């Protein structure tokens, strides 16, 4: 008796569960957006060509709604009926077969089509007024320069007025005026100018001599306006996505065109915040993407063929002289140094500039101050004595082991 009851209970329970799951699928039919996102969005966008065509106005394009439904449910079978429109579409999209959706009911499809209709066409909503162009940098120094010049002129005029007045008063009083010496012959003036010239000249010469072969702040114009701020900042693409070579070997690689095309096969226009060159000229991001397509030999809607791509000749910014050995992987992989430590806040740079001066003093300073990450780092397990001293407290573990202690300031470490 009890067992019968429990069977009945379970049956009831499972029936309810089954009904619930059925209801759940029915309920979802109302949500066209969710259905679109789970079934269609991988290949279709509403207003943009993707793997498949843009879906805005799809109902107007198809002659018959029943045909459209048949096509969505089983495109392969529908193609075999020899429908001209469907076959043309199939050929236009590089014979990429559309997935079959036998699970979608007519109601579901209508919900999806309803959602597509409800999406506004691009451009109908006005873009928010962009922020005004940022004041070009360097404006301040110009202002100060002009101010200084004006003040100097005023001071000169006042000096002249002063001397003229004095001359006048002397003449009035009838005293014999002594012979006036013009200021360019005045000894104290000459001495003053000589000292100023020596100091300024000496400073400029020393600075210039030290700057030879160094190019801090070097910010060349690149063949394509590529904004690291947009890619690595706004869109959060990891540095190593494109420059993966930094963890593999000596050089941090410049990405080849196929890596750009991983995303730009789909992203063919720029709609983000306004971007400017360093001189304050606005840049059309979409046009810059078109430049990439030219190098890649890519036309929107055709499959991308990496073998047809031509390399982009980027201008190299960071250059170390040949007599210095520098290895990226040693710093990135073994040393676990962040890219930004040496390259600055790349995620905020539209156009990249050389952040550090890459001088020897700069290298050595960092080697003296930086602690080696000894903990859980197999690369440094060979330094057994240091590990023991750290354990026994002979070396203050808060101070740790600097790069200098493991030979990071030896000449031969970098020069050989």
């Amino acid at each position, binding site marked *: 008796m009890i067992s019968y009851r429990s069977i009945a209970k379970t049956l009831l329970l499972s029936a309810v569960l089954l009904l619930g799951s059925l209801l759940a699928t029915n309920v979802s039919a109302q949500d066209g957006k969710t259905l679109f996102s789970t079934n269609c969005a991988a290949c279709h966008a509403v207003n943009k060509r993707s793997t498949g065509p843009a879906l805005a106005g799809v109902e107007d394009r198809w002659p018959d709604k029943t045909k459209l439904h048949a096509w969505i449910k089983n495109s392969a079978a529908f193609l075999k009926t020899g429908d001209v429109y469907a076959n043309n579409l199939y050929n236009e999209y590089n014979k990429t*077969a559309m997935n079959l959706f036998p699970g979608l009911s007519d109601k579901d499809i209508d919900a999806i089509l309803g959602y597509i209709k409800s999406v506004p066409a691009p451009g109908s909503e006005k873009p928010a007024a962009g922020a005004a162009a940022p004041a070009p940098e*360097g404006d301040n120094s110009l202002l100060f320069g002009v101010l200084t010049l004006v003040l100097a002129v005023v001071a000169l005029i006042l000096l002249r007025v002063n001397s003229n007045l004095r001359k006048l008063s002397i003449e009035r009083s009838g005293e014999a005026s002594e012979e006036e010496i013009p200021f360019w012959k005045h000894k104290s003036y000459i001495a003053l100018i000589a000292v100023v010239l020596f100091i300024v000249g000496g400073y400029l010469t020393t600075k210039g001599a030290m700057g030879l072969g160094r190019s801090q702040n070097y910010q060349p114009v690149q063949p394509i306006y590529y904004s690291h701020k947009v890619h690595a900042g706004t869109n959060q693409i990891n540095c190593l996505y494109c420059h993966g070579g930094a963890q593999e070997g000596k050089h941090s690689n410049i990405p080849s065109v196929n890596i750009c095309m991983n995303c730009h096969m789909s992203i063919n226009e720029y709609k983000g915040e306004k971007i400017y060159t360093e001189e304050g000229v606005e840049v059309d991001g979409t046009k810059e993407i078109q430049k990439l397509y030219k190098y890649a030999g890519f036309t929107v809607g055709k499959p991308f063929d990496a073998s047809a791509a031509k390399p982009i000749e980027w201008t190299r910014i960071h250059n170390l002289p040949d007599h210095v050995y520098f290895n990226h992987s040693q710093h990135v992989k073994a040393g676990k140094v962040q890219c930004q430590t040496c390259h600055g806040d790349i995620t905020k740079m539209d156009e990249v500039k050389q952040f550090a001066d890459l001088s020897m003093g700069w290298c050595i300073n960092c080697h003296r101050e930086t602690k080696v990450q000894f903990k859980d780092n197999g690369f440094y397990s060979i330094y057994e004595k240091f590990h023991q001293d750290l354990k026994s407290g002979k070396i203050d573990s808060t101070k740790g082991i600097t790069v200098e202690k493991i030979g990071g300031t030896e000449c031969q470490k970098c020069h050989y």
Partner: protein
Amino acid sequence: MMKKLSIIAITLFTAAVIISCSDVKRQPGSVYMPDMANSRAYETYADHSNLTEAGIFYNNKPVAGTMARGEELPFHLTKDAPGDTTNYTAAKLVKNPIDSLSAAEFKETERLYLINCGVCHGAKLNGNGPLYKDGNGPYAAKPATLVGDAKYEAMPEGQMFYSVAYGKNMMGSYASQLNRKQRWQVIKYIKLKQAASKASAAPAMAAAPAKDSTAKK
């Protein structure tokens, strides 16, 4: 008269110099005696276009048919021509040479996944990375929902490898960013994540079948 003119000229010149001074440094600056600064050897990213003229014959590709030590065996299927799915289907039968990931390997593979895949497929493998952002990001096509979509949970690992190696639809080839071993590891990572999410969802589901089994007695 001459004096006035010269003063005007000097003022104009100074003004011009001040105006033309910009903070943007478009030129790298000068070098003095760069004897040891410029490499005598051909460096990476140097101009290699005239190597043959200089009598150097260098092909930077490995000899055909060879492979590096420790590398995974090559994938024997080639990329399908557009409109053809023969090899894509055949890839279903290829087995993942990586059976399991140790804790350290799992951590490293997760790092690789987050760098190379997470930007589209999401850190939670939900197909909603920062480039898609529920359709608000710049990327128009919805990336595959790797965890939580039955299609991808049932997809054989070999077919996933085909897609990662050659690209599929809007996804490009990742062969230049991940080597063969890393690609197989990342796929194993995805499969482990899928299994983990199923296991965590299981307790709720497990309650019902448990009752069923008792009922059959």
